[in-house]
């Protein structure tokens, strides 16, 4: 599943550590989500989408099998 976490984070000039702190998760989890190795839970997916002012389906694209950005 493709996601736009890395794209949105870099657009806002945030480091992975800063995003992790804002989302209340570890830096390793942000790395895993960005690389597509970990699919976040629904609550975390909503938290991520809301943080970037996007909807979940804009943030995560289930039709794209390609992981990461």
């Amino acid at each position, binding site marked *: 599943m493709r996601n736009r976490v890395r794209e949105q984070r870099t657009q806002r000039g945030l480091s992975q550590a800063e995003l992790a702190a804002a989302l209340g998760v*570890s830096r390793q989890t942000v790395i895993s989500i960005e690389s597509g190795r970990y699919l976040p839970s629904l609550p975390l997916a909503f938290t991520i989408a809301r943080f970037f002012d996007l909807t979940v389906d804009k943030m995560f694209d289930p039709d794209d099998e390609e992981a990461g950005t």
Partner: protein
Amino acid sequence: MMPFIPPRLRKPAGIALAGAAFAAAWLVRGGPLWWVSISAVILAAARAVSWYRMGGEDTDEGALAASRADERQHLVSLQSRALACNLTAVAAFIGLTVAIAVKAAWWWPFLVILAITGFGYLLGLSSYGSGEPDADDDADAGQPERSPVQR
């Protein structure tokens, strides 16, 4: 669990407590091997300190050691424990099979371990499973079910 203890101290405290209990068992047992209790205390203290230090690291292991794991790290921990349980069950089955083959008297601990792992699995299914065969469509299930990693 143990909310009165700071998160980073919880696992080290558990290790220290387990070491103290093990040492106390050797002391109560008495006999010439009483010194094992001192070794157990020293080893447990060293292990508790190393876990505390690991808890300060910015890694998955550090987060688990410091009881501050997020959902992915909880999942990693759960999967690791499941793997450990599977290996234990396989090893116990092999041990039981070998013990039976050689007519050894020490077959029963393997059976106990197998029974505990099997019981634990069934307990997990009944605790976390959502199998409600008699439930009607649209039945109000009450509280929404949550992932065990977020309990």
